[in-house]
C-alpha cells in the first residue's frame, strides 16, 4: 500500500463467507516423529540392558542402600559439603570485597588468590594440604616478652578430615569469590550512589544495599557450585577420609561387588543433588521476590528438581 493512504482492510462481499469455510491443515514435521521413535527405541534398549543384565545385581545394590557404613559415609559427605560451602562463601565474600576495593594491593592479593586456587587442580591442593607436615613441622605462636603461647605439631591437627576441609574450602572460595564479585558488579552503581547520598557509610551500603541485591545474581551459580562441591568431595577418598565413595570402595574391595556399590553411590549422589535443586529453587524465589509479581507455579519446583540443573 502506498504511503499516506489510510490502511484499511477492504473485504469483498462474500469474502467473510468463504473465510468461514476454510480449514487449516497443520504442516507435517516428519523429523520430529522419526526422532521421537528413535529416542523411544533407545530408551527401551537401555532399560532392557539394565533390567536383564544380571551383573548389575539390583538386589545386591538394594541390600547395600541403607548399609550402616554407607550411611556413615553419606553423613561424612554431607558434613564436608556443608562445612566447606559455608567456609567458601565466607572466604569468597571477603576475597570478592577485596577485589572491588579501591586499594590496588587488596585487589592484587585477591586476584592472585583466585588465579592460584582456581588454577591448581583440587586433587593436588588436597594432597598438598594433607602433606603439610613435610613443609611445616610445627605451628606455634610466639609473642615477644610472653613466650610461646601456642604450639602444635602439624601432624597432630592436620588429620585427613581437617586437610580435606582446609583444601577444598580454599579451592572453592576461589570460585565463590568470582561469583560474588560478578554479583556485586551486576548491581547498578546508582544504588550505592543513592545510599551514599542518603548518608550511608561504605560498609553499611555494602551490607544493606549492594550484597542483598547481588544475592539474586549469585544464587543460581552458587547452587551449581554446591552441587559440584558435593561431587568434588569424593576426591577426599584419596586421602582416606571415609566419605560415601570411600565407604563403598572399602566394601567392594572386600566383596568384589563393584557395580552394585557404585550404583548405591550414584543413587545417593543423585538423591542429594535432587533435594539441593528443590532447596535452591525456593532460595532463589525468596531473594528474587522483588522481581516476581505473581506467585511462581509449584510445578516449577518439580521441574527444577527433575531437570537436575542449578540454573533456571
Amino acid at each position, binding site marked *: 500500500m502506498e504511503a499516506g493512504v489510510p490502511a484499511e482492510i477492504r473485504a469483498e462481499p462474500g469474502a467473510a463467507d468463504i473465510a468461514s469455510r476454510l480449514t487449516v491443515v497443520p504442516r507435517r514435521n516428519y523429523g520430529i516423529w522419526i526422532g521421537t521413535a528413535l529416542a523411544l527405541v533407545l530408551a527401551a534398549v537401555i532399560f532392557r540392558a539394565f533390567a536383564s543384565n544380571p551383573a548389575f545385581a539390583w538386589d545386591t545394590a538394594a541390600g547395600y542402600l541403607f548399609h550402616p557404613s554407607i550411611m556413615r559415609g553419606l553423613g561424612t559427605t554431607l558434613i564436608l559439603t556443608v562445612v566447606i560451602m559455608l567456609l567458601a562463601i565466607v572466604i569468597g565474600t571477603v576475597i570478592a570485597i577485596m577485589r572491588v576495593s579501591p586499594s590496588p594491593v587488596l585487589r592484587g592479593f585477591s586476584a592472585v588468590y583466585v588465579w592460584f586456587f582456581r588454577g591448581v587442580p583440587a586433587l593436588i591442593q588436597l594432597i598438598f594440604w594433607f602433606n603439610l607436615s613435610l613443609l611445616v613441622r610445627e605451628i606455634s605462636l610466639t609473642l615477644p616478652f610472653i613466650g610461646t603461647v601456642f604450639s602444635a605439631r602439624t601432624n597432630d591437627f592436620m588429620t585427613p578430615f581437617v586437610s580435606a576441609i582446609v583444601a577444598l574450602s580454599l579451592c572453592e572460595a576461589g570460585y565463590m569469590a568470582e561469583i560474588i564479585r560478578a554479583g556485586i558488579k551486576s548491581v547498578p552503581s546508582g544504588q550505592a550512589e*543513592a*545510599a551514599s547520598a*542518603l*548518608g550511608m*557509610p561504605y560498609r553499611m551500603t555494602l551490607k544493606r544495599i549492594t550484597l542483598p541485591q547481588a544475592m539474586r545474581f549469585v544464587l543460581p551459580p552458587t547452587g551449581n557450585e554446591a552441587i559440584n562441591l558435593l561431587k568434588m568431595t569424593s576426591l577426599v577418598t584419596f586421602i582416606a577420609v571415609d566419605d560415601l565413595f570411600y565407604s563403598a570402595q572399602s566394601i567392594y574391595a572386600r566383596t568384589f561387588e563393584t557395580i552394585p556399590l557404585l550404583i548405591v553411590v550414584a543413587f545417593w549422589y543423585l538423591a542429594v543433588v535432587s533435594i539441593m535443586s528443590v532447596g535452591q529453587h525456593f532460595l532463589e524465589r525468596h531473594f528474587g521476590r*522483588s522481581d516476581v509479581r505473581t506467585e511462581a507455579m509449584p510445578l516449577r519446583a518439580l521441574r527444577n528438581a527433575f531437570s537436575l540443573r542449578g540454573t533456571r
Partner: protein
Amino acid sequence: MSNIKTENRARFSVPDNSMVFARGVRKSYAQLEVLKGIDLDVPVGSVACIIGPSGSGKSTFLRCINHLEKISGGILLVDSQFVGYDLRGDKLHEVRDDLLCARRAEIGMLFQSFNLFAHMTVMENLIEAPTQVRRVPVDQAKAEAEVLLRRVGLLDKVNRYPRELSGGQQQRVAIARAMAMKPKVLLFDEPTSALDPELVGEVLQVMRDLAESGMTMVVVTHEIGFAREIGDQLVFMDGGVIVEQGAPREMIANPQSPRTREFLSRVL
C-alpha cells in the same frame, strides 16, 4: 558547631541566609576541566534552576555540592560548612567517613534514574536511612514515612516494589525517601528526564509543593516552564562556566548573552 559557621561566614564573607555558597569552584578529571570557576549563591528557602546543554558541567556541579565528587579548587559551603572537609588554619582536612555521611544525610539528592533500592518495598526504602543512619525507632520512622507518602500521593503503594511502579511514581517515592532524612536542601539531577512526557507533570507537582513549603532546592532540569514558574533564580551553564544568571522570567524573556538566546530558542 554554629561557631564554625560564624567563623566561615566571617572569613569567606558568606551572605546571611546562605544555603549553598560557591566561589570559584573548579573540577577536573585528569586533563579535562569540567568546571572552570563557578560562583553561586542559593539562599535558604529559594529554588535555583540550572539549565544548559549536556556536558556543560551542571550535573557535576550538583554532585560536588554533596561531595559525591571532590572539587579541585574553590570554595563550596552548604549551610556555611564544608561538606567533606574541616578547616583548621589554612588547611582543609578531609573528614572521617562517618562525619561525611552525617553531613551528607542533611543534603537530599534525587537522580535521573530514581535509584530506589530495588530489593526493598516502598516503605523499606523510606525507613532504611532514618533507621540505619540516624537510629530512629522503626515505628516512628514508619509513621513519618506514611505522612510523606500521603504528601506525594502514594500511600496505597507502601508494600509495592519499585519495579511495580511507573517512573513518575518511583521518582515521587524517591523524593519522599530523600525527605525522610529531613534535609536542609534538596538537589535534583534532571529528575524528569527519564520520564514519559505524561508522567512529568506529577513529579513537577510534588516539587512545586515542596518549593511552596519553603524547601531550599537546586534543580538541574530541562523543564524551562518549571524553572520560569517556580525558580527564584535561573542559571545557564555552558562549557563549565555560568554564562548567565538572573530572575527566570526576565532571563527567559530577554536573555543577554547570545549563547543563552541560542540555547533557549532551541528548548522552548
